[in-house]
């Protein structure tokens, strides 16, 4: 996969992630019930784990996805590293939140799981951008 295609894929996945996290952040802030098929979204969204210092955890997710999307817009080394760092940080935090859902809350939020899936895809894609050397242009 060319770097151009890789960047496009990362951009699309990041925008999807930003949309998912944004939806959770907005519904949390305006106190609107979340559309939910798993039945546990409200439990997760209203739990004490849904905020960090007054900031919705989902808003932190939006921030991470925005960083990821921005990193995909650049071919520079710092951007590649930033993208991988954001994806790995997001996935690590997501694993903890998955633990909270499974063990502490005994409830799952489908939107959080969707975000987890996107991060699982984004980590290897962003890693690929860091470790490989592109052929010279032209």
């Amino acid at each position, binding site marked *: 996969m060319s770097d151009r295609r890789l960047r496009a894929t990362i951009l699309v996945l990041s925008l999807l992630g930003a949309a998912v996290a944004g939806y959770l952040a907005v519904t949390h802030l305006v*106190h609107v019930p979340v559309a939910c098929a798993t039945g546990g979204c409200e439990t997760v969204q209203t739990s*004490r*784990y849904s*905020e960090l210092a007054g900031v919705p955890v989902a808003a932190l997710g939006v921030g991470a996805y925005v960083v990821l999307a921005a990193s995909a817009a650049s071919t520079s080394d710092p951007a590649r590293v930033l993208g*991988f760092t954001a994806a790995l*940080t997001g996935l*690590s935090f997501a694993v903890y939140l998955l633990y909270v859902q499974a063990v*502490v809350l005994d409830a799952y939020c489908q939107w959080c799981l969707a975000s987890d899936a996107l991060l699982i895809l984004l980590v290897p894609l962003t890693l690929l951008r860091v470790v490989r*050397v592109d052929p010279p242009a032209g």
Partner: protein
Amino acid sequence: MSAGGAGGTLDDVNRRRLLLASIGGAAIIAGALIGALALSSGGSSKHTSTTPVGVGRVALLEFADPQCPYCADWAKTSLPTIVRRYVRPGKVQIVFNGMAFVGPDSDAALRAALAAGRQNRFWNVIELLYENQGGENSGWVTDSLLRSIGESVPGLDPQRMLADRTSKAVEEELVSSQAFAQQSEVSSTPTFAVGRTGSQLQLVQIQSIEPSALTPSLDAALGQ
């Protein structure tokens, strides 16, 4: 061309360093976020004297005396509704601030409940005390009753509960909960306070012990 092969060029070395720095950075940031979230969510109400029940971001603090008949009525009739509607869905956590102003049996009952709390069985014991509530200071809180209650709670060591009644930890909890009630100017029970978990809670004036007396305050706090 891939840097994954046998490298040795400056680019490869730099990339590996960048990769390690990236992994280290991610570990530090994620660790900080997880630590901060665990810390902020682990703290319940600042006024807790018992293990809170529930994980909600809104706290319902109850000032109660184990000998108070209204407290028993509230626990039997309204508490299950509050638990079903707010605690189980993860919206609200309930914190009990014990008081022992009715008399010696209050003190004896509260000590036993707090001692059970040392084994994470506070709520089981306080519920059973309410169910077995006798006449005010009639001497109903006997060792025999407490042992019987202790034996009926799964996972509770009754002997340890009885022994812990006079422990320093229980003594301190008893003093601090009474002091907090006094500081909050609570003079009757049950009295309730509601607010965001970990923040200053606001006392709620209730007109009845029906669940509807508290639900507007809980809904308002959840909507903030």
